[in-house]
């Protein structure tokens, strides 16, 4: 089965997880939903080929789209005193702090952090997903972590 049915099955099963990753990549619920939709739509033309194991391909589109969108639209959050979005109950101080710190990272640095420390990909896998070299992954991760520590996240261990 490699047609619409398997695609719908995959969407139903994995959309939530993809939204969580997209949320970390974008920092916005609406953008996360938009990003996931775009990634899934772009996966459709290749579905016949990737149906057996679609996750890596979709994740690759997700991560690259989050970076290239920023390039196209100069879409970068400006750090402000207020979070762009809060849950009904309101986020904890730690979450706000982390969200603001992530927002201050360059999109590629943020993608490296999300892939390496949320998705638990290796450096090689992260490099493959983003289409960059392992050395770039290392340097981007190092810079991003240093920045996070500067932003009072020094209690965070990797």
């Amino acid at each position, binding site marked *: 089965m490699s047609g*619409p049915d398997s*695609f*719908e099955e995959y*969407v139903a099963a994995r*959309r*939530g997880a993809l*939204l*969580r*990753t*997209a*949320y*970390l990549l974008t920092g916005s*619920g*609406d953008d*996360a*939903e938009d990003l*996931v*939709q775009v990634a*899934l*739509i*772009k*996966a*459709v*033309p290749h*579905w016949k080929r990737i149906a057996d194991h679609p996750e890596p391909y979709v994740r690759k589109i997700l991560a690259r789209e989050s970076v*290239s969108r920023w390039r*196209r639209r100069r879409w970068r959050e400006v750090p402000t005193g207020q979070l762009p979005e809060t*849950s009904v109950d309101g*986020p*904890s101080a*730690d*979450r706000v702090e*982390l*969200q603001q710190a*992530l927002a201050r990272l360059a999109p590629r640095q943020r993608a490296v*952090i*999300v892939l390496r*420390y*949320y998705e*638990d990909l290796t450096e090689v896998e992260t490099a493959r997903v983003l289409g960059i070299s392992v050395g770039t992954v290392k340097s981007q991760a190092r810079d991003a972590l240093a920045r*996070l520590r500067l932003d009072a*996240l020094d*209690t*965070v*261990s*990797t």
Partner: protein
Amino acid sequence: MTTLHDRLTELADEAPAGGPAPELWDRGRRLHRRRRAGTVVIVAVAALLLGILGTTSWLRERQQPAPAGASEGLRLPDEFFVPGEFTDGTDDAGELGPLTAVLRAPRHGDRTGLVGIGGSSGIYRFLDLPGWVQDDNVALSTDGSRVAYWYGARSGGLTAPRIDGLAVYDTTTGTIARDPIESDHGLMSQPLVLVGDEVWFEEQPFIDEDREATNGGSVLAWRIGGEHVRTWQPSAGPVPSLVDATTVDGRLVDGATHRVRLWSSDRVEPEVRRTGRSIEAPVQPSPLTGVYVAVLGRDGAAVSASDPRPVVTLAATAPGRFHTNLVPGLETSEVVGWRADTVFVTFDYRTSVFAQVPMDTASAKPLTRLTSDLGDVGLQVAADAWKGPTYGASAPPDPWDPRLVWGAGGAVVLVAAGLVVLWRRRVRA
């Protein structure tokens, strides 16, 4: 202490659950179709542009050979052209065989090239002459099989080129025979004449490094591939004048004022024939009839060299004398050769038309013409070619600069590739 993973997981919990996402599959298929359609259009347009570029380029460089003739000898086009500067050279396209004519033409921008016109094919091709100093003094043999030229180092500016010797190019095999001539500062370029198997030239070595002043003026005859067989020194007697000299039966003919001289490398002294009237070189001898033809001399009259002059025929009536006959009603700039035993060929500088003139009627009839907007291109027609059959000539190729063609092709591919990438990124389902 919490890990970064833990804190990212906590933050990710705030992600939206996701509302309905209808028609993702259909939107994906639409995206695919739009991407493909756009890509096909861009690739098709690029292919069309490349096709137009390639076809136009090919048409411009394609040579239209002369119509097949009954014989393989030299043939005469009804028009001579100046080809484009990116026309093929013999190094790449091969030798042309005996040539109907040679002429100078701009080559690759600031260079001057010597163009050969194939005797039977009519094809134009630059002659890649090793070491040619790109000067005006080249000589084409009567049968079109050899080209004599000066070799050395080209001039970089106002300084004359440094000439180290003369060379003869075989138009069929491409082989070069050289005659190196020793001098401290090189030789000055002087007219060359191919006389049978010999090249006659004037040796004028420069006496200064700036190559401004010369010394000497001896005329030498070099047997091609061999030795100098004769030297005429001004201090020892008369020397041949090589400017506008012609040849007949292995002898060089120079003419001026009231005499014609015939020189042979067998003898120091020329055979001199008085003409009775002043004439002007070149004097064209007919090998079969022994009649010579030339224009009348100006004798100090205030007329320019290109103004038409009356024509006279010279017939030997007694040893050492020519009887001169004015050709009635005919004026021309120069007599350039013989088309038949009693038909000579003239050239009019004002119209660039070569005409054939029967001696008995003197009625000039256009034979061929030179089409050039470059002024004097040094057209030299092999003497035997004047006797050949004529054909309707097509304009030679005018290829584009290959760098321009490849650059334009590359640019089309790059722009198309960029548009495809841009389109595939930008297109929305």
